[in-house]
């Protein structure tokens, strides 16, 4: 079963990445990032069972904690940007360029 779980994890990760690349709504982009993190967690849990080691689950747990913190800050940033620029599009925040 390990192979199947890992392929699923890879597929979800690729879909998440695709979403990051083609969506412009910052919140959706953020969701896609969360999807990628979840895909990683799945791989961790799968490997944890595969090798008989709890540490994979511990790492997945920490990933969730960090993801929670990241979401809090990231969404706060999105709100701030939206408040000043009236837009949640990641393409609109492009002043830092050549």
């Amino acid at each position, binding site marked *: 079963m390990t192979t199947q779980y890992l392929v699923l994890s*890879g*597929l979800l990760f690729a879909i998440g990445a695709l979403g990051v690349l083609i969506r412009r709504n910052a*919140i959706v982009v*953020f*969701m896609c990032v969360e999807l990628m993190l979840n895909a990683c967690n799945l791989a961790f*849990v799968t490997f944890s069972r*595969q090798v008989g080691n709890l540490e994979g689950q*511990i790492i*997945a747990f920490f990933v969730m904690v960090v993801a929670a913190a990241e*979401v809090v800050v990231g969404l706060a940033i999105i709100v701030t940007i939206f408040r000043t620029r009236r837009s949640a599009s990641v393409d609109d925040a492009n002043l830092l360029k050549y």
Partner: protein
Amino acid sequence: MGETITFWVLAVVSVGAALGMVFNRKAVYSALMLGTVMLCLAVLYAVQDAPFLAAVQIIVYTGAIMMLFLFVLMLVGVDSSDSFVETIRGQRVWAVLAGVGFATLIILAVGNAVFAPEVGLTQATAQGGYIRSIALQLFTKYVFAFEITSALLITAALGAMVLAHRERVTDKPTQKDLSRARFLGDRPSPLPGPGTYARNNAIDMPALLPDGTAAESSVNRYIARYDVEHGHLPEDPKLAEAIKHTVEHDEAPTEAEKSAESNEVTK
């Protein structure tokens, strides 16, 4: 066997939901799709001898994080749907190429790998059971990491407060100021509530003014639009006309109205 069936069902659902999340124009739907994926993953965790993680996944991700997403979506404007016209040249082609290529690579790599039979967690959780083993790991080997995450969470909370906080640059308007602003504006009185003084006591029915005419401003324009789109118009032609008029008026909002609307949303 049970696991296999569970896996295949959930795998199909989660991939479909993930694709739906990416390709749905409305952010709210995307969020719901993400929630679906997360629930599927929670079940998969549980199937894979990780019931603790499954619980955490549901509580933290589906419960807290997804709620946060939805909350922010409400703040930013739930009704807005994204345009799917790509503005950066080549971005979509390359993104699809890279995504498909990456997935292919992962599938190739994982498919080619030969795994030994799963060890399972029986050995690892032999001492005192599953939860106790996790607690042992967390509070002995990973105790510093665990403590540091607390610092991280506090910092994140502080950061979010600082970022979201807005400094007041003008004095708080007094009652006198508000009153004056109201009387200088278009309408000194509050908006009329819908359905009042009328036969229909529903929020999509315009109120009737004392002279018998329908008060267009009494119906929320979203509700009015819903009614028009779904054919829920009242039989009374006068009221139906008022609702349609509200929608027509709403469909071509001026720039000033737009900004006023987003102001409303932010507030």
